[in-house]
């Protein structure tokens, strides 16, 4: 069961990175690129809680880092943290509500960018943030929010009813 779950996550990650690097790069909004994996991690947090989102966030971020080939570990760290934080509200929200999911993705995309920016500044790589950091932060949040409308039904099915449903483990 566990192996099958991780294999499905590998397929999700592969497909997302493929779409992001070859298809969605043609559809940027004011230079902002979407982050399908971040949307996925936040949805895991909202639907399955902090522990699941923490581990998935780390795994997803690490593979994304290896794909990018630069600052390896940065996305793993930030996505794990964002997953953990988004999981904090799991019990407080109505999981079926797509509007809540969109708002949460919007908020946590901003949180993700702020953490990423802080990490880069702390590690002496502030130059990658650029002068358009604030604009990119807001447009990315808007873009990810839009994509959530499309991704929500698929993740709801997978995480609540389907193969990736949370099971109690001893």
């Amino acid at each position, binding site marked *: 069961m566990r192996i099958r779950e991780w294999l499905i996550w590998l397929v999700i990650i592969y497909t997302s*990175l493929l779409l992001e690097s070859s298809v969605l*790069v043609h559809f940027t909004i004011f230079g902002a690129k979407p982050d399908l994996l971040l949307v996925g991690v936040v949805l895991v947090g909202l639907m399955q809680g902090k522990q699941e989102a923490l581990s998935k966030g780390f795994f997803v971020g690490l593979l994304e880092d290896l794909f990018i080939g630069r600052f390896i570990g940065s996305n793993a760290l930030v996505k794990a943290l964002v997953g953990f934080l988004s999981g904090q509200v799991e019990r407080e929200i109505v999981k079926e509500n797509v509007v809540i999911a969109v708002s949460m993705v919007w908020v946590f995309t901003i949180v993700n960018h702020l953490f990423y920016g802080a990490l880069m500044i702390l*590690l002496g*790589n502030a130059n*990658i943030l650029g*002068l358009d950091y604030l604009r*990119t932060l807001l447009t990315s949040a808007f873009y990810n929010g839009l994509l959530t409308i499309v991704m929500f039904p698929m993740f709801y099915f997978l995480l609540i009813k389907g193969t990736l449903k949370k099971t109690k483990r001893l």
Partner: protein
Amino acid sequence: MENRNKIIIFFLLVACIVTVRLSSKDREITQVERILAEGFRPMQQSLMQATENLILFAEGVSNHPAVARENELLKSQIAQMEVETDLEREYYFENIRLRKLLNMRETSEWQVIAADVIARGIKSWDDTMTINMGEDDGVSLYDGVMTYNGLVGKIYQVSPHTAEVRLLNNRLGSVAAMTEQTRFPGVIEGIGDGSGLLQLIYLPHDAPVDLNQTVVTSGLGGLIPKEIKIGYISSIDYNEDGLLKSAIVTPFEDLDRLEEVLVVKLEGGVSP
């Protein structure tokens, strides 16, 4: 159990910080990254091509009347060019004959490798792209990448069948350049404000740099050939202290819409 989790999280945190630091500079890629690059390449190439075709189709449908007019114009231009081509062919053969007469050797300082763009960087700060030629095809680290309009970037990572190109507007890279007319040297880099503009930096306030001058590669460093066009100076910014200025350069090529590129290297270029 609780303590064990805390230790694992602490260990992962430290490991991540160390790997971020280690991977922040240009380097040879690891075996894992090599496998990842190879695993993505075929699908990236097909998807990129399919998306570009789809966009072209959509643009074609929306611009149909204009395209029809342009088609007529192009047909007449082609007819005229065919005449010119015949003339040029004559010159070409005449040139070969004369070269033979002078016993000149056909030489070219540049080695050129044609490549297709198969993917783009996935992060907003990541102004990079992946091409479908790698070290097995002769591509090496720090080779220049250009189109017929001019330089667009340089190679910063190579795997057997793909290579990563850092575009000129990337905040992490720079290229040795100079003004074509006054031969004044400088370093060109991305401004980093999302505009796609570049800047020629660290110029003394009295440097002979003016609007509309063309900026070309200077060839310093011995990796990218000299005299490749980059862009033109569209404005000049003076530093607050008045000692230095920087020239804002508009690149000749649209760095967001690259499909085919050429990797250029100097024959016998200096290794980094």
